[in-house]
């Protein structure tokens, strides 16, 4: 407004008060500065970081051991940074904006397209990694828009777990078709025990579990309002109506399903190999594993591929990116894949490694078969998967709680198309 008065008094006053004001301002600036500087970390020349979601003690340890061996092999230091899976994506994005991305980023395969679409990843072939001995399905699993961005070490999928003792006592065979599963589940439903447990919760867990039913029936995530998808949903509804599925199914996560199975409240369940460690820890539980039943005998059982992929984020430092690709090469090497697969009960991505693994863990052969035909969730719709997934979970939940499958799926398809 007005020019500062040249009056000496004012200047004197400001000099005096500076004694108090300045230190206080400095203190606040320092506090703010310290807090903010946490965002932009400086990269260490000789230390490479791998960021993953291995926050579980066992996974953290296994990855740590792998990285120790790779550090030795490559003559560098590799550090592991583990972030809870649900926060990994947002954390990585924040790191991108502060230019502090790790050298190797392990993303969930369903999240990888979003990151790749944003221009955040370097195609691995550009950095000298090959896809020799990796089945096409698994290459697709790590690809977006025809480019291979993510190397999987192991993959997982869903299978049918069953309680051997319960089935034996009832004199029942492991079901292989929808009709068989429905009748077996009905027969096994007694008292507090349900024939089958699966997750139809309002999150990715539920959608993951719905895909084998949708896909084995010829349904497709790029068009949800088809009779094939509706039939799959009607099959779930029929199981619920029979009483073979608990009504709480719509509120269960995959971990809840496993708890119910272990507690003897379910004779069979749809679940993944990551539960094996827990299942084995329960004494007296005699469980078996089979492929997920198909609509008609002779159909392919198409399950969803799950698991993480190792990617190289776009940091702009070509030399470091090349080294990062070498780290991925080491981590997804045959030997490392086998040891990681045996530890985590998942299936090695590499064909040769998978053959060796199959011999070592014959009890999980059904899982290896299921992986052979399994499909990636994002191969068709890419980064749009999150919208499809949200629409689909809302659809099967409303169908399971009363609405007609056709109407629910029709609305879901509209939701996806309108982009809301």
């Amino acid at each position, binding site marked *: 407004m007005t020019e500062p008065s040249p009056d000496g*008094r004012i200047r*004197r*006053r400001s000099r*005096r*008060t500076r004694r*108090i*004001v300045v230190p*206080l*301002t400095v*203190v*606040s*600036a320092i*506090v*703010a500065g310290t807090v903010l500087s946490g965002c932009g970390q400086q990269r260490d020349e000789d230390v490479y970081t791998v960021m993953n979601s291995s926050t579980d003690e066992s996974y953290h340890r296994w990855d740590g051991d792998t990285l120790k061996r790779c550090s030795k092999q490559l003559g560098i230091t590799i550090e592991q940074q583990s972030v809870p899976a649900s926060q990994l*994506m*947002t954390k990585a*994005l*924040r790191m*991108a*904006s502060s230019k502090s991305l790790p050298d190797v980023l392990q993303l969930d395969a369903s999240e990888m397209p*979003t*990151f790749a*679409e*944003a*221009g*955040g990843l370097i195609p691995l072939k550009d950095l000298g990694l090959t896809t020799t001995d990796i089945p096409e399905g698994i290459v697709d699993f790590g690809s977006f828009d025809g480019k291979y961005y993510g190397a999987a070490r192991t993959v997982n999928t869903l299978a049918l777990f069953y309680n051997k003792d319960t089935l034996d006592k009832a004199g029942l065979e492991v079901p292989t078709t929808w009709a068989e599963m429905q009748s077996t589940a009905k027969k096994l439903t007694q008292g*507090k025990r*349900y024939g089958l447990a699966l997750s139809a*919760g*309002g*999150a990715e867990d539920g959608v993951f579990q719905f895909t084998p039913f949708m896909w084995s029936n010829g349904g497709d995530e790029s068009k949800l309002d088809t009779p094939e998808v509706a039939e799959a949903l009607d099959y779930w509804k029929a199981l619920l109506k029979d009483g073979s599925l*608990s*009504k*709480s*199914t*719509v*509120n269960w996560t995959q971990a809840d399903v496993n708890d*119910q199975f272990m*507690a003897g*409240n379910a004779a069979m369940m749809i679940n993944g190999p990551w539960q094996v460690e827990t299942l084995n820890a329960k004494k007296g539980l005699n469980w078996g594993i089979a492929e997920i039943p198909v609509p008609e005998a002779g159909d392919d059982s198409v399950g969803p591929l799950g698991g993480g992929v190792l990617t190289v984020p*776009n940091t702009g430092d070509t030399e470091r990116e090349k080294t990062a690709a070498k780290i991925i090469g080491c981590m997804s090497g045959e030997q490392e894949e086998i040891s990681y697969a045996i530890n985590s009960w998942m299936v090695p991505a590499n064909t040769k490694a998978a053959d060796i693994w199959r011999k070592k863990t014959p009890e999980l052969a059904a899982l290896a078969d299921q992986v052979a035909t399994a499909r990636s969730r994002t191969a068709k719709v890419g980064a749009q998967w*999150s*919208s499809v997934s*949200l629409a689909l*979970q*809302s659809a099967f*939940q*409303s169908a*399971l*709680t*009363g*609405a007609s499958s056709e109407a629910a799926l029709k609305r879901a398809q509209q939701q996806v198309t*309108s*982009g*809301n």
Partner: protein
Amino acid sequence: MSSTTASAAALPADPKAPAADTVKKPVNPRSAKRRKSLAQWGFIAPAVIFMALFFGYPLVRNIVMSFQDYSPSTFFTGEAPFNGTDNWSNVFNDGLFGKALWQTILFTVGSLVGQFCIGLALAVFFTRRFPLNGILRSLILLPWLVPMVVSGIVWRRIFDQDTGVLNSFLGTIGLPGDTPWLTSTSMALISVILVNIWIGIPFNMVILYGGLQEVPKELNEAAALDGASAWRTFRSVTLPMLKPVITVVLVLGFMSTVKILDLVLALTDGGPADSTQTLGTLTYQNSFVQMDFGAGAVVGNILILISAVFAVFYLRVNRNEGK
């Protein structure tokens, strides 16, 4: 101001005083006053800077973001083109928004009424003297100490339709033991409200109990002498005296309830079939599941706006109380 001349006159008469001099060095009162006010500003400055950095900046950023096409690629390129009111119209045209808004209102009103009534009843109850009063009072605080997510997970188990404790308890006492607490679209929101009431009771009770301690006992005695019934005394004496505390409880309760997120995620994930989606979960879903940060910002802004209206209301009420 009247003593100015005296001390001002003393100023030039004071040559450099020896260090040992115990007499305080007189200062120019006008400059002293200015210095004092500047010092005050100096003390306020850290708070102002803090507020500007951690509240002002994100707030403005969030408003700007709601008019931008803010996608994951923005984090790499730094570019977020402005897209006018696209985000806003997208959010408003999404059927889920209206549903979430309505459910947020039901959730907030239901929770506040439940928490407040039970909290007040307990607070009044504990003003009487009886054995174990203190122990019981601290036991009731327990839900307050449990992290929200933990409460959510525990209650999800309790509410399980078949294996939950609640239904088997209801079954044993002869009531229908198959209530679909979290699995029916008509029941889930009520169950989530019930859990939130359970969580909110301690806060309401503690604050209202504190308020009740402030109500002079003589007033109640006087009312009793005048022949007022207990209920009449409570309504006409205690409640009006409690009014400032009640406003605090309700406004603070409102602000923490309207933005509910963690409890819903832990209990139902917004399901079944979106029947427990609130504005909080919608923001979360838009921003961190769909990675559409612009749309997330829109819903976030609406939440801030709703809270701001109540904050202003609260400040007005408080100012009137002060008069």
